[in-house]
């Protein structure tokens, strides 16, 4: 699956986009965030405070229990500040 990072999550994770293959048991947004946080100290720092991490699955806002699969595009970003 493709994972995108925006704003300070990108800065902290040290990467804007990556293709990952999580273990079979990782099937929800929450489980994916837990697994991504183990990938590097930067990932851990980016995902340390989940209350300020928003998630989109295939460009739609998603909650922690939403399912994720191999063909999905997952985006992680802080609360938005446009306008």
């Amino acid at each position: 699956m493709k994972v995108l990072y925006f704003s300070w999550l990108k800065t902290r994770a040290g990467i804007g986009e990556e293709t990952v293959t999580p273990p079979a048991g990782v099937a929800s947004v929450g489980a994916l965030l837990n697994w991504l946080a183990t990938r590097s100290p930067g990932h851990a720092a980016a995902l340390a405070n989940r209350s300020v991490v928003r998630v989109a699955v295939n460009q739609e806002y998603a909650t922690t229990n939403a399912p994720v699969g191999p063909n999905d595009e997952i985006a992680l970003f802080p609360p938005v500040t446009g306008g």
Partner: protein
Amino acid sequence: MIRVQREDFDAAAEAKALVAGNHRVGSVVTFVGLVRGAAGEATIGAMTLEHYPGMTERELAKIDAEARARWPLEASLIVHRYGRLKPGDQIVLVVTASAHRQAAFAANEFLVDWLKTKAPFWKLESTAQGEQWVDARAADDYAAKRWGPK
């Protein structure tokens, strides 16, 4: 209608074109958001807007559709810029048009409130102290919530 672009826009020309030929329109409300020159004590040198291409357009289209469902609008337009901007530059344009003013005013305010809390844009401020991502404001969440759920 929605557009996401790097280029500047001409608010008056956009509003005029939006309602051209539609004689049911009696009211046009135009909102333009600008880059402020200060953040607290700090002077802003530049503001860079990042966004999520694809999702940005989808979210803006959903917000636009929601406004059209809630108010009797004849036309509506959201133009949001991205990239590096300077103080005084235009960031966002929201135009709403209706037969009578109440719908155009209310829908315009709704669109601005909702896009600020839903459309995936992030502001990076450059000041003499360096670059800093702007934090979301509780006041914006509050403003968006008064329009009810969805």
